[in-house]
């Protein structure tokens, strides 16, 4: 059995829990309910040659990065970094969280999600900025937990990265 621990990282209210619910249960709720502590979910991703069980650690988003409990990430093989595309400051939060995790546990595969792509009129991240990050070779997705756009793609991509 191929089982991989994945951590959802990002500022508060960027949509980590909603992305997991969309991916695992195919549902979305407009109501915002903040996560306290950590919530564990599981989803199998099937590939032609194997199946990977992703154990998703949906960690509480902090507004204070200093209080992030990096030890929760122990044993993780991949990260889902989540940014709220309507709040530019959440990009820096996601990148700082990744740095802290890498300092503790070393580099690991990740995907970077710019979430809430359905809120086009409030979108605040430029295409240029995203292109620049893509040029670093990063796997970047513009996702919407509301519509489901690119959510499965992003998790499948990470699953294939951690399975190898």
């Amino acid at each position, binding site marked *: *059995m191929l*089982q*991989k*621990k994945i951590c959802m990282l990002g500022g*508060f*209210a960027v949509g980590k829990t909603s992305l997991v619910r969309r991916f695992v249960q195919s549902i979305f709720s407009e109501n*915002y*309910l*903040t*996560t*306290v*502590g*950590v*919530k*564990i*979910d*599981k989803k199998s991703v099937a590939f032609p040659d194997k199946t990977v*069980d992703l*154990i998703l*650690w949906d960690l509480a988003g902090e*507004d204070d990065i200093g209080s992030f409990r990096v*030890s*929760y990430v*122990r*044993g*993780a*093989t991949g990260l889902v970094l989540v940014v709220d595309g*309507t*709040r530019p400051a959440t990009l820096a939060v996601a990148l700082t969280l990744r740095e802290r995790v890498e300092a503790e546990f070393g580099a690991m595969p990740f995907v970077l999600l710019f979430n809430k792509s359905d809120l086009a009129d*409030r979108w*605040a991240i430029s295409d240029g900025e995203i292109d620049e990050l893509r040029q670093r070779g990063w796997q970047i997705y513009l996702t919407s937990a509301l519509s489901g756009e690119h959510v499965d793609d992003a998790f499948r991509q990470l699953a294939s990265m951690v399975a190898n």
Partner: protein
Amino acid sequence: MSRVPKEVRSWIYDFFYNERSAAYLKIDARQCIEEKGGNLEHYGLSSLRIGKPVADQLEFMEGLLPCPELPFHMPMMELPGGHVADLHLFGDNGSVWLVFLDATPERDHQQRLQQKAYEMTLLQERERQLNAKLQSTNEALRESQEGLSREYRRAESLLLNILPASIAERLKADEQIADSHAEVSVLFADIVGFTERARSVGATTTLAILNYFFKAADLLSEQYGCEKIKTIGDCVMAVAGLPTARSDHAEALANYALELREAARREHFAGEPLGLRIGIHSGPIVAGVIGKRRFVYDLWGDTVNLAARIQKAAEPDEIRISDATHQLLGPEFACDPLGETELRGTGRVRMWRLRR
């Protein structure tokens, strides 16, 4: 613990065991479940099997063992079954104990507090964003309004350059403009020997001279309440009594002519003072605007034609006026009679020379 009285010890035990649904697992060095007990059923974990790998049965244990930082506390973990537990791991001779304590009420309480704080922060962030957007929208609106009114003023001043103000107003109101004016005076003035002198001084100097002449004609028309209608080559056409009627139109235009001649003389053209030939006639005309996109305000009628003929007949530096104009001038204007002269297309016409 031995120092703690039996009653307290017992209370602590009961509290954790019953109120917080304590449960435990012992995990051996191969990371298999060695022992289990307590209220596992509360967490939906009663089917855990002894001797089997823990990570296969408890997903969150994947990757956690071996754990170098024991004891390790993970507060408020929501398990797939929906229960929230504080998890405590501590070592015991190569094995690890994992203790579950229910934390659902604490989590719910903290969630309510945190929820309010985050919602407040989100509202404030959103408010800031909206304010910034409002500000930049206002700024853009103000700029485009300024641009618009700049364009409007430009168009306005362009229009006023070619049309009298009252005519421009009526044109903007989409009026058709063709007005008969019973009593106006019309003036033509051109530069003496323009063609030959222009050839001798070159284009740049000629342009400067024309500019001087036309500017003087403009300025004086404002001063004497006349309208400069147009220029044709080196010739200026002006009118008095338009678009607002005035009884002293002939005198206004006579003063205009005298000043224009003076202004011309102050300038030199090809070494000589700039000389004009001026002709004035008074009578009825029709004034109107023709054209749809390029407006031309112009005058028509015999009065206009005769004024032009008189001007052509004038001597250098002479202001020649028709008899009709002469009759309208007061005694302060000094005029010499010129007798009757044959003018092309009009026959014999009685004319005067305005001296001052």
